[in-house]
């Protein structure tokens, strides 16, 4: 089994090498005429006001938190799906209960307005 992962490891190494070579080619052959105006961040041709990276709207954090909650639940589905045929009706009932619990949280989040993008 380990062998299969070694194969993937080899792939990762190859892919990284190719990506680095690609960037290297650009660095090697591309012209380099730096100037202060050129290295200014692009903002439609206007000198930007304020920093480019800063606090982001809180909405994005909410989405991230919700994602973590629900993604973990999706992960629980995967092993269940593999052995579902052995579990039979019991498995289905178990998962029904699980989905209901999940749905309660989901409806709560919806009603609280966490899914609104206003």
């Amino acid at each position: 089994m380990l062998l299969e992962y070694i194969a993937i490891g080899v792939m990762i190494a190859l892919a990284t090498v190719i990506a680095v070579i690609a960037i290297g080619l650009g660095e090697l052959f591309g012209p380099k005429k730096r100037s202060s105006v050129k290295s200014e961040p692009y903002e439609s041709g206007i000198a930007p006001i304020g920093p480019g990276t800063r606090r982001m709207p809180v909405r994005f954090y909410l989405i991230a938190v919700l994602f973590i909650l629900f993604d973990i639940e999706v992960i629980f589905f995967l092993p269940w799906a593999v052995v579902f045929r052995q579990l039979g009706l019991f498995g289905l009932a178990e998962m029904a209960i699980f989905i209901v619990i999940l749905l309660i949280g989901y409806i709560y989040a919806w009603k609280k307005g966490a899914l609104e993008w206003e």
Partner: protein
Amino acid sequence: MDLALWIEFIIKGFILIFAVLTGFAYLTLYERRALARIQTRIGPNRAGPQGFFQPVADAVKLIFKEELTPAKADKVLFVLAPIMTVVPAMILAAVIPLGTQFTLPFLNRPVTLYVSDINVGVLYLTAIASIAVYGIVLAGWSSNNKYAMLGGLRSSAQMISYELSLGLCFVIAILLGNSMSLLDIVEAQKSVWFVVIQPVGALIFMVTTLAEVNRAPFDMPEAEQELAAGYHSEYSGMKFALFFMAEYEKMIVISMIAATLFFGGFREFWFLQGTVFSVDHFWWLGPIYLLLKVVVLLFLMIWVRATWPRIRYDRLMAFGWKVLLPLSLALVFITALGILLANQFGAIYIWTIPVLSILAGLIAVLLVNMSLRRKVAHA
């Protein structure tokens, strides 16, 4: 662990990566020509016959472009971001079976037509696919550019939102195939493709993958009309090429995944089963069938891009969270129910799955329609 195995890994890895890279190059040409046909144009046809060398010309041009790094950008992350985006796209294909196996002449060595068949193949796909988000967020963050930051944020929020439904679609395929190994899933579709059993699931899968690879109509992060070029506004030359490459490679690989999970993978079309055109008969038919399916699926993506306007960001998030997520949850449940019924009362009951899923899908469409109309009435 012998040397021959290492050599096999390296050769197979190389071939796969080069296949994906060539695929990327010619997908750009394919897309441009197909778009041109749809838009009553001709498209690139100057470089070589039918524009055959256009991708080469593009690559050469990009290599000789000046690379700019904005002042106050995070230099390390700025270089790292494109690499982090492109590497997952290239290695994603490692677990996808391109065919069965064949025996190498002279050496008498059996060679499988996939780099690796890990027993958690589906999990691998979800895991690797989500790594690409980091590259995009980091690109947006490190550029010190407002468009790029907004684009990166949009993109990450969008990708993680759609990943939930994507994950649930994987669950559907696992349920039907009864395994996480992609090879097993393909073999399970020998007689009936999963798209027939779970058409709505396949549809959701294709919609969410559009969002995953940031293609129209979900191309928010790079919404040209709003945020200039989004997260890669500041990238030029080869670094930009890597982002571009990642997007197109992901398109290819995701089409391969869709083909594998729902359209029978490298397996022949069902009506060719048992004939000389079967993969069991000639091993080299496997990659060809897969390629055919990928080309068709890619055309669907291009077609969508040529016809549909972009969805507004808030609507897009609402669609992911309020429509696709509950719908795919319901589909998982329906699929499980159908399998259970088939196990208990006979194989014919497997057809409750498509009936119930299409019903669920219709209800979802109806609800969306009603809420849209209501919103309009409000405004």
